[in-house]
């Protein structure tokens, strides 16, 4: 048996995929990294600048804050929704699941354009607020507007891992708790909520991580004065053509993201964060 030969030939079909990945992603990322640490000598100046230029840290902070707001909003909306999904009939559950996937189905540009129409000055949201006597609600061109639009597209990433965790919780445990003297509310907080924490963690990590990289939504719905890190990165690349500085910032964003993804994958337990992302279709990251 020429087992060695068999082993090598069985790796062969992977070559095109790996070559593509290397050529399109790994090599460019590597070159970007090299450029960011050479000037042309080895230097960390580009990374130091990120901390001292007075802009990057502010933008990173704003990005983290926006991502956190999106995460909390998605959890507050997504948890009840996922819970509802575990309670309804199989048929209704199917409908609710299809609805969750709608933001994935909707083209990125169509969705963001829709939000422009809805949030614009004189648009339906503003009119609705004026109708109830609240004037001057400005959402278009603000971080609040960006947050609303991002929450919509991030909700599925909260709902799907939560649904898989909540659906796996044995409802007999809730009956047991009721039988042992707990009111429905107490049974929820003492039994259901602790058992759902894995899914909550997975959803929170996933939404927060993916929210960090949004570009199109803040670029279209936000304002340049309130830019998020992706806009800053784009600006330094295409407008300032400062590839070294952009590379350093890109590396920071990438490393933060990958670390969070690995962590999310770990805390998610049975819920594979990557799997959830991959089986659904992420947009505008």
């Amino acid at each position, binding site marked *: 048996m020429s087992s060695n030969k068999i082993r090598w030939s*069985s790796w062969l079909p*992977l070559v*095109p*995929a790996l070559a*593509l*990945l290397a*050529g399109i*992603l790994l090599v460019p990322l590597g*070159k970007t990294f090299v*450029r960011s640490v050479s000037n042309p000598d080895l230097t960390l100046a580009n990374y130091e600048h990120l901390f001292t230029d007075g802009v990057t840290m502010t933008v990173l902070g704003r990005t983290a804050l926006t991502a956190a707001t999106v995460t909390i909003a998605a959890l507050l*909306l*997504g948890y*009840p*929704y996922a*819970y*509802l999904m575990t309670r*309804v009939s199989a048929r209704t559950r199917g409908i609710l699941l299809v609805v969750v996937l709608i933001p994935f*189905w909707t*083209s*990125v*540009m*169509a*969705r*963001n*354009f*829709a*939000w*422009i*129409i*809805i949030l*614009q000055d*004189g*648009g*339906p949201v503003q009119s609705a607020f004026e109708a109830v006597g609240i004037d001057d609600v400005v959402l278009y061109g603000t971080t609040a507007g960006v947050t609303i639009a991002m929450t*919509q597209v991030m*909700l599925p990433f909260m709902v799907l891992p939560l649904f898989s965790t909540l659906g796996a919780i044995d409802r007999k445990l809730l009956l047991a708790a009721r039988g042992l003297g707990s009111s429905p509310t107490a049974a929820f907080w003492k039994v259901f909520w602790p058992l759902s924490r894995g899914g909550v963690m997975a959803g929170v990590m996933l939404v927060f991580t993916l929210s960090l*990289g949004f*570009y*199109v939504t803040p670029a*279209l719905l936000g304002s340049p004065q309130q830019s998020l890190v*992706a806009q800053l*990165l*784009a600006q330094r*690349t295409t407008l300032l053509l400062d590839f070294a500085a*952009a*590379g350093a910032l*890109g590396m920071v*964003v*990438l490393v933060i*993201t990958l670390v969070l*993804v690995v962590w999310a994958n770990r805390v998610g337990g049975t819920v594979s964060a*990557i*799997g959830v*992302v*991959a*089986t659904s*279709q992420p*947009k*505008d*990251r």
Partner: protein
Amino acid sequence: MSSPARTRRRPDTVDPIPWWLKVVGGLVIAFFILPTLFVIPMSFSSATTFQFPPPGFSWRLYENFFTNPVWLDSLGNSFLVASLTAVLATTVGTAAAVALSRLDGRAARFVRTLLMVPIVSPAIVVAVAVYISFLGWRLTGTVTGYVLAHTAIAVPYVLVSVTGALGGFDQRLLKASASLGASPLTSFVRVTLPLISRGVLTGGIFAFIVSFDEVVIALFLRSPLFQTMPVQMYNSVTVEIDPTISAASSLMVVAVTIIFILPLLLRGRAGSRQEPRP
């Protein structure tokens, strides 16, 4: 049913779904669906701005979309890039998935994770890295550049989809095929491929949509001579204030919905086959 005299009004279950939960559910459903629905009335607007509600009914935006060469070219470009991407990504991704299904151990797991990296990396970082490299390689603004970049981010979708289909594939069938005299390649074509065809098809559709709808990398690779439809849509809201985008958006929403429903229908029709859902 029992007589009213014997029946007392009681809830059907001890633990009914609270009303407020249904309200929250309804709100979330509205949040999911409504924004998209705004696009469709807008596409029949007679206004030359993004004014909502539309002042009047008109086919003008659709007329403009289908007569204006800028829009038509971008649509054609998108179709070209997405089709080539779908073919390339499906081939490469299926080969990788089949190979990985027969390998295990640390190295195989590492490779699998590595191939998923494009999906979890922020699109903007990928776009910047690709842009900087492609500038040097003179690939920006070329079909090759678009297809290569889009294929790199589409392969993971094919990988996941085909791996799912392979989950229900009995590797013993290949041994049976070999014992009956088939070469590995024949076995793949005559046995493996037919059994995972739905996973491959789904992966291909995913790859097509990923490319067709991709905007961040496309924004960096665009040139005045070659740009895709999402980029043209981006321009129409940032530079031109061209309401034709509502017609384009409506068409995109309808097209993507149809493409997405297609695999569901295929799945339903061929439901008797023993394959797990991708």
